[in-house]
């Protein structure tokens, strides 16, 4: 018998192997996903940005309203392309397709599996998250060097929401229960992010709560990239990194409980 092999935690080969499965699958459905990921923010942008700026709001914080919404829509695109695919995709692969049973029979552990799923979703989301920004260029938003950091901001935020989605998928008993998750978490986070209106017009208590909303921090960082950063943006980015780390660990813990008897 040959010598014993040793294997480490978080092996890049295991993570890239799981991601290669996602890429192979993505090649079969990228058209539909990309279409909806481009069209949805465009529709929101046209509805809110053009609709409201033509009737009610001309400028917000010295910025044309459509550019205010366009920069904020990055966060909307990120949450919809990370939390929802993580929730539904993870649930379906685990409960209906038995995909994880096959992957975990290979030399891949739950930590590597969850990490790979999060990295893949965040990579996609970082690309889709930039779409609203690019679209807003056509409404007069000037490209700025700070915008080069937007994919990084979107990636880190999407990591956090991917971890959140994985944790939720491992926690709910039935797929219908995602309705509660969407109503209680996703929609409020999306609405109180400062995308469509500045949160400083909200009651003080809501403003304080909004500071703990990762989407709000992302909105502020994207606007920082477009209209000028502030020193507090370092703290905002640190908050997003902490959010991603926390949901990564919670996602792993919940998935381990679900996958290992």
């Amino acid at each position: 018998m040959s010598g014993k092999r040793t294997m480490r935690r978080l092996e890049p080969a295991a993570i890239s192997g799981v991601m290669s499965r996602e890429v192979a699958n993505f090649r079969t459905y990228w058209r539909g996903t990309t279409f909806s990921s481009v069209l949805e923010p465009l529709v929101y942008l046209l509805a809110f940005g053009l609709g409201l700026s033509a009737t009610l709001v001309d400028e917000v914080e010295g910025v044309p309203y459509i550019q205010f919404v366009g920069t904020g829509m990055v966060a909307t695109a990120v949450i919809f392309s990370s939390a929802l695919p993580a929730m539904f995709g993870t649930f379906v692969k685990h409960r209906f397709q038995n995909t994880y049973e096959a992957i975990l029979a290979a030399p891949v552990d739950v930590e590597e599996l969850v990490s790979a799923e999060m990295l893949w979703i965040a990579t996609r989301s970082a690309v889709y998250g930039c779409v609203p920004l690019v679209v807003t260029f056509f409404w007069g938003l000037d490209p700025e060097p700070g915008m080069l950091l937007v994919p990084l901001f979107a990636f880190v935020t999407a990591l956090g929401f991917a971890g959140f989605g994985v944790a939720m998928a491992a926690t709910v008993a039935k797929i219908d229960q995602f309705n509660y998750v969407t109503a209680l978490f996703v929609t409020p986070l999306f609405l109180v992010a400062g995308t469509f209106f500045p949160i400083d017009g909200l009651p003080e208590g809501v403003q304080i709560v909004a500071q703990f909303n990762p989407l709000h921090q992302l909105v502020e960082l994207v606007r920082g990239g477009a209209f000028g950063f502030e020193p507090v943006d370092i703290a905002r980015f640190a908050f997003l990194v902490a959010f991603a780390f926390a949901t990564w660990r919670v996602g792993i813990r919940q998935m381990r409980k679900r996958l290992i008897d």
Partner: protein
Amino acid sequence: MAAIELSGVVKSFGPIKAVNGLDLDVPEGICLGLLGPNGAGKSTTMRLLTGQAIADAGQLRVLGYELPGESKPARAEMGVVPQLDNLDVDVTVEDNLAVYARLYRVKDVGAAVDRCLDLARLHDRRRDAVDKLSGGMRRRLLLARGLVHEPRLVLLDEPTVGLDPQIRTELWTLIGDLKSRGTTILMSTHYIEEAERLADEVAVMHQGRIISRGRPADLIAEHAGRQTAEVYAPPERLAELRVSAESAGLRVRPAGPAIAIVGSERAGDGAVPEDAVVRAATLEDVFVILTGEEAE
């Protein structure tokens, strides 16, 4: 060294002991059939061996690795063919294989894919999506996927459950080829014929533990003797015959609409009726006597 060594393994789910003091050694190079009725603990045993279930008690060693601590390197050297088809149906045949070659850290992914396509006889379908394949092709692909890294040990979890006879025979041929190459195989099944055809040794599992083990012919000789007499008659007569045979010290088991008097060569005058159909004893007789369950 044995490929698999399990000693005193216990695994409970709430009040249910799925595996209850399991002792099992699988020497290298043999095919061991783990035969048992539904709920005997076969699938839980397979999950314990792949690290997807953690034992409450006992020792588990696979290919020299202690589980669960060294489960990951153990999994790198074993292949698993699951009971349920979990192929990626929208992805091509070759991509399904390539993904698992990467997961198993195979160095030459292209060569491994080609070898598996040969094995599964799917070279001309390599660029087709899996959902375009027939049921038999999918099963062959599933088996080939479990062998993509040329494992020393293969776990086959009910490899032909729910398949039609033709596909089942195709898979038996592939598993036979694998055996002939000296790969160690642990195969759980509740099909008697599958165990008889493929297994060098059979371990009968019931209520979470092994209740008997040996070569099929030895198990038959030990538990069922040489002959079994099957009697087809109305229920009242079957009940009378059963009482008569049992009082003569013979073992009787249900056999669908009939009863089977096991070890009928030892029967005295009158214990076996003249209209009985006498046949050679089988592993099915052993299975039903030991587990009390009807075989499939």
